[in-house]
């Protein structure tokens, strides 16, 4: 049986790396005494499959992890209880919010996810100046960048990968540095565009403050869905959608309000918004 977990990562723990989080999960899954399927060979490891790596220092409300469980033992597990079982074992700031069973034949997270929505704080920017910078970028036909690929400099156009940009307003009170905040939907196919690349492509380049991944989307035949299939077991906190101002270290953190002050969109994100988590 393959299960897919959705979890959030926020606060101090955001400074752990993707690799650190993988090791944390390995220990937590052992502590939870789940019937983990293991790799063959001399040093069997639990079969875990991670999605797109989150940069060290970035927060997230939508991280995913696939775990293979042994059958028939897996059938005994109450999946609905799993988030509550796992979250207390995880470090402060990592919370499991939903879980569902997926087919082993489903494409991997890395193959399936087509875009990510990011909330990006830009220290030292006013809402107005950020609004005009975002408008200018969306108006551009092409955003040429030079990036390093296999040690060589290659020219690339960022514009097709920028699916949506919108300014949300001023940074919340708890932000380490005051400024403005915007949301960006960036493609992950054919290659993943990182928030740092986007910020560097502005003219002049923008400084990176706090960055949070809000959603990962799978776009199939024009329809957008999140990587958990219908019928996922979602915790109460995830459904309620606690206000995003709550960046403190307690465990009451939940999903963000998704209020937008859209200044131009190709529509994907809005469509996605409507369908977001309405499966509960």
């Amino acid at each position, binding site marked *: 049986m393959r299960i897919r977990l959705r979890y959030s990562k926020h606060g*101090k*723990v955001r*400074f*752990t*790396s993707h*690799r*650190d989080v993988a*090791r*944390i999960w*390995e*220990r*937590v*899954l*052992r*502590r*939870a*005494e*789940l*019937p*983990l399927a293991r790799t063959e*060979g*001399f*040093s*069997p490891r639990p079969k875990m499959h991670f999605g797109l790596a989150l940069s*060290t*220092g970035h927060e997230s409300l939508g991280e995913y992890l696939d775990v293979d469980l042994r059958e028939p033992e897996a059938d005994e597990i109450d999946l609905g209880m799993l988030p509550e079982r796992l979250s207390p*074992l995880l*470090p*402060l*700031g990592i919370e499991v919010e939903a879980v569902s069973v997926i087919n082993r034949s489903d494409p991997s997270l890395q193959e399936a996810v087509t875009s990510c929505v990011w909330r990006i704080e830009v220290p030292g920017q006013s809402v107005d100046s950020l609004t005009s910078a975002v408008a200018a970028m969306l108006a551009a036909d092409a955003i040429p960048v030079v990036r390093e690929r296999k040690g060589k400099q290659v020219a690339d156009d960022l514009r097709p990968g920028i699916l949506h940009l919108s300014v949300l307003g001023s940074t919340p009170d708890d932000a*380490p*540095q005051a400024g403005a905040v915007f949301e960006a939907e960036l493609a992950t196919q054919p290659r993943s565009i990182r928030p740092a690349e986007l910020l560097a492509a502005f003219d002049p380049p923008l400084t*990176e403050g706090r960055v949070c991944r809000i959603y990962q989307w799978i776009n199939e035949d024009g329809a957008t869905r999140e990587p958990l299939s219908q019928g996922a077991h979602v915790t109460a906190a995830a459904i309620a959608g606690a206000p995003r101002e709550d960046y403190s270290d307690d465990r009451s953190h939940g999903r963000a309000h998704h209020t937008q002050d859209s200044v131009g969109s190709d529509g994907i994100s809005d469509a996605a918004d409507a369908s977001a988590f309405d499966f509960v």
Partner: protein
Amino acid sequence: MWPQLEPLLAKVAKPARYIGLEDGSQRPEHANDRVAWLLAYPDTYEIGLPNQGLQILYEILNERPDAVAERAYAPWTDLEALLREQGLPLFSLDTHRPATDFDIIGFNLSAELTYTNLLNMVDLAGTPVRSADRLEHHPLIAAGGHCTYNPEPIADFLDFVVLGDGEEIVAEITEVVVKWKISGRPAGSRAAMLRELSHVSGVYVPSMYDVTYDGSALAGITPRFADVPEIVEKRTVADLADFPYPKNQLVPLTEVVHDRLNVEVFRGCTRGCRFCQAGMITRPVRERPAEQVRTMVEEGLRRTGYDEVALTSLSTADFSGIEDLVRDIADSTSNNSPVSVSLPSLRVDAFGVGIATQLQKGRRTGLTFAPEAGTWRMRQVINKLIREEDLYSAVEAAYANGWRRVKLYFLTGLPTETDEDTLGIAELARNCVELGKKYTKSPSVTVSVGGFVPKPFTPFQWFGQNTVEELRRKINLLRDATRKSHGVQVKWHDPKATMVEGIMSRGDRRVGAAIETVWRNGGTFQEWSECFDLDLWLAAMEEHGLDPDWYAYRHRTETEVLPWDHLSAGLHKDFLWQDWRDALAEVGLPDCRWTPCYDCGACTGYSIEHIVASATPPAGGSQGTGQDLGSSVPVSLLGRKPESASVGAE
């Protein structure tokens, strides 16, 4: 101070090492009637976090109603620069509190080259580096750990020093300091409080002692007041069973060294290797009851989620009933998952390999042995009584059981070492490769060579260490001798670092000025090869009129006053001197755990005894290898006959 720290962490390498949040970490509540300890390790988080000594004290202190404890590690140079730029101090990881909020900053000192990091952390804590310049409101700067058996080079920077096991003494120190804290620390009270601390057995307060010199030689270190002890004795916990710590080992969120469950199975070692300070200063042997070990392993694995446990001690294969213990753990599963067991030190014999074979059911990559010296003569001098046959049987057993790589640890620059002894290392390595060819196409033997540094409270404390040039010559000799030997690789420790370690290891209080100068000139993280700079040290020694050769290379005489003569590890000085003479006469000494007592002083002086569950040595022998070496081994039994052959608490 997390809000100020947060934006800085986005700019530094490996920020996860500054966030705390480990499983097992605590968020203690500070109060006016609680002594706040900041337990500090003067190296990076990755090196410092696994330190078991600090973890034990962290729990013991936080269990007390009159104390709280948090942790700090040396910030790497990138974060240090940002902290200084922003005017921010050193901070605790547990609640991200400034170091200035603590009453005591207690350092664990395990390596001499970290001394400049200690100064740097004290300075980052907004505290004058010299104890004489500190005022009532400054934290007390303290140190413990193996290096503090000669604290003189750093004595001017420390308010107090702790000798020996910390489990009990931290309570007594807390009781003195809490009174001072509650009193509101009136002006001038710091010295009186330190004087009271000097009455606690095991506490050394350097400022309460006068140092006198006779020309360039040390004449004596004597108490300034009649109530301050002339000799400071180390503290020894009589029974490890009373201290099943750490109960909640910290589980780091990011990668560190020794990233596994660690359970200490015994403390102390009486094998009597003459170069080994740890074995001399931690006597006697105190085994943890096997049942307690089993419980700590079982509960530790369940709680942490680790799938590996290390049974730690100075020589774990000597633990009574080690085979049963290892088999039980290796056969068990925890959290539905197979458990692997590791022993950090493996004895050089087939018995050790037998245990290793039990442990490592999976892929067998490398096994490490420490014969320490290249010839039987040299090994008699250092009292590591391993015969060539023992090593060969161990190595052959390793290859026969599927291992492909063998690593051998050696010391060079040992007393009486000749080129024949050095070349003996190459010979052993080549023969090991030949043995391996019977079992595998391309056996590999890695020879790792460290330069020998004489340590206080060992029989070799009188020995003038080899010069940088001599060590380099010996390493080159070894490299030349193995150049054409396929399968033999030689690795070595930088002889320049060995020299500085030697100056610190046996230096006196005058060396402190040079340490401060090296730190002021930017010489931090000196134990990192990319940061170490011998020129900084030599320039600093010269600036203060100190002769590095005199400190590192000079043989000491029997009558010379040593900088640690006013401290005691329990060992009688005449026992050590006799052992030094025996070494030069190439005479070995058996392990007193299973044979007569030599009255070294470590038990008798403190009315304590070995606690060993088995009265018979493992695998039929009482020698360094645990094998029955027969009567052909020229071992002299020194000292008196014991009243009874049995060992253990009475």
